[in-house]
């Protein structure tokens, strides 16, 4: 059912490797699905970057969807938090803070 075509990142400009960045930063420069709040950001620059916004959590999301999204983001940014680049590390730290705030809001404090 799946066909896998080799791609080299050096050949593929679309997938040019970039340092991991928080969702809000990505929204400024990359084409993200129009369904996501991050994609809407450039059109609404005044929108406050709430923890939900950073974590791409929408009001319609179910509890299990929020949980899955937070787990994905935690795995992603916990890895970025080990980066040698202090900028990436600081951004990852900011995202991890946002993830924890959203988690506490939806699932309670530890």
């Amino acid at each position, binding site marked *: 059912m799946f066909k896998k075509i080799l*791609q080299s990142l050096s050949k593929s400009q679309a997938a040019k490797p970039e340092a991991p960045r928080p969702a809000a930063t990505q929204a400024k420069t990359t084409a993200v699905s129009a369904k996501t709040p991050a994609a809407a950001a450039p059109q609404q620059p005044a929108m406050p970057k709430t923890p939900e916004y950073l974590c791409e959590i929408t009001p319609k999301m179910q509890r299990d969807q929020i949980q899955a999204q937070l*787990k994905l983001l935690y795995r992603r940014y*916990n890895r970025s938090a*080990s980066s*040698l680049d202090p900028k990436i590390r600081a951004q990852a730290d900011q995202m991890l803070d946002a993830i924890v705030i959203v988690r506490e809001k939806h699932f309670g404090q530890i």
Partner: protein
Amino acid sequence: MAEYVGIDLGTTLSGLAYLKPDGNPEIVPNSDGERLTPSVVFFEAHEDVKLVGSAARDGGEPDRTIFQIKRHMDDPEHLVEIDGKKWTPAEISALILSKLKRDCTKIIGEITEVVITVPANFNELARKSTIAAAEMAGMKVKRLVNEPTAAAVYYAHTQGVQGRILVYDLGGGTLDVTILTVEGDNIRILTSEGARHLGGSNFDEILLAAYAEQYQKQTGSKLWTDERHRRRVLHATEDAKKMLSKLQRVNDTVANDQNSGIARIDLTRDSFEAMIRHMLTRTVMLVEQSLDSAKLRAADIDHVVLVGGSTRIPKVKTVLEKMFGKTPKSCGNVDECVALGAALVAKKSARIQEVCNASYGTVAMVYNAKTGEEKLMNSIVIPKNTPIPCSRTQVYQTSEDNERVIEVDITQGEDEDAKFVDIIGRITLEVPPNRPKGCEVAVTFSYDENQRVRALVVDKQSGRSREVAVSYKGAGVLSEDELKRKSAYLKTMRIE
């Protein structure tokens, strides 16, 4: 000669243990009479001597004192300049290891071969730097073992437990969570997850900020204006943190170095735990990630074992107890069990089944024939946590007509989004001309017992192939000659 020796080269404390003739490990004290040596180095300006341990931590000038060098073991650009000489993290770690070796040799005899522990999430450069540090200090590394694994080996040895164990290792600088099974003498690692830059020193910094805020409120002045005084206050916050693990309330007084007056700091355990709550939530999320990685639920864990000085914080125990429905256990002194376990591993290493520390794969455009969707992604060939040794193959297709050179990126990381993994190498393979796109290419990754990874690319039509060892050979890795030279130089130094 001491045959089985283990060393815990920690972020804040280091320790050496050896296996006694009765088969039980024992910590060997340093020449200052301490069982553990602070991982701090002071470069004395007036005498040609390097101080390591408590003397280095408690006195000296900040510009000449090196703390927490372990946090930089994977950074080839992190150099510490003292008196015009640039020291790498491996060289500074070698000074700490030299102190341990020289002091402990006087008690247990010559030490030539050791097992050294590293955080489970240490990358290849950090592991190579650790081995280089030991070699500079005149010791051959028999094996590197992950810290939680060493602690679990010690726990299983002393408690005689069987079943699934989750080790929660919250040290001075890092958090590691490892899940493993113990069956008789055999230990099988199921998964290891880690968080760098998350440990006791983060809690100290949070307390330091609280002290500074209180001081500003009470006196209207800054609590410190230079690094020397900031270090002193940091030391005081560390003491307060430790006391709050035993007491509900701590009163402290602080002053700055400008005679701006004294401020009284009132701390309660509750307020401290509230300050670090977000950090502890991160640790809980890592535990959840570990359970997910091992495809287990909290109820599947038989024993929760605490390792590392920061697990003395009562809230850590409470949170884990609530999560697992059972009381977490410590294996004696939480600061010593890693070194003790390492000494046991020195003898029993063959009985430990390790897993791949990371996922390896390549970048591919994946088409779903059913839905018509296509997605550029990190295509994993060998998943993290696969028991080693192992070998896995995936077949891909070429993307262009008349492609003369096939390029295969080697990725490390679990994320399916290629932007969130590391590209650690590339294999290029020349193939015959005039072929249509869609020719099959097999990509195989192999992982051996020594955690060495190899990648093999085979063009199925022409039979041409190329194999490479996937290893870090970049900046920061020393050649054999450099190692020998630095080792000889270190031998001439006075290290106290």
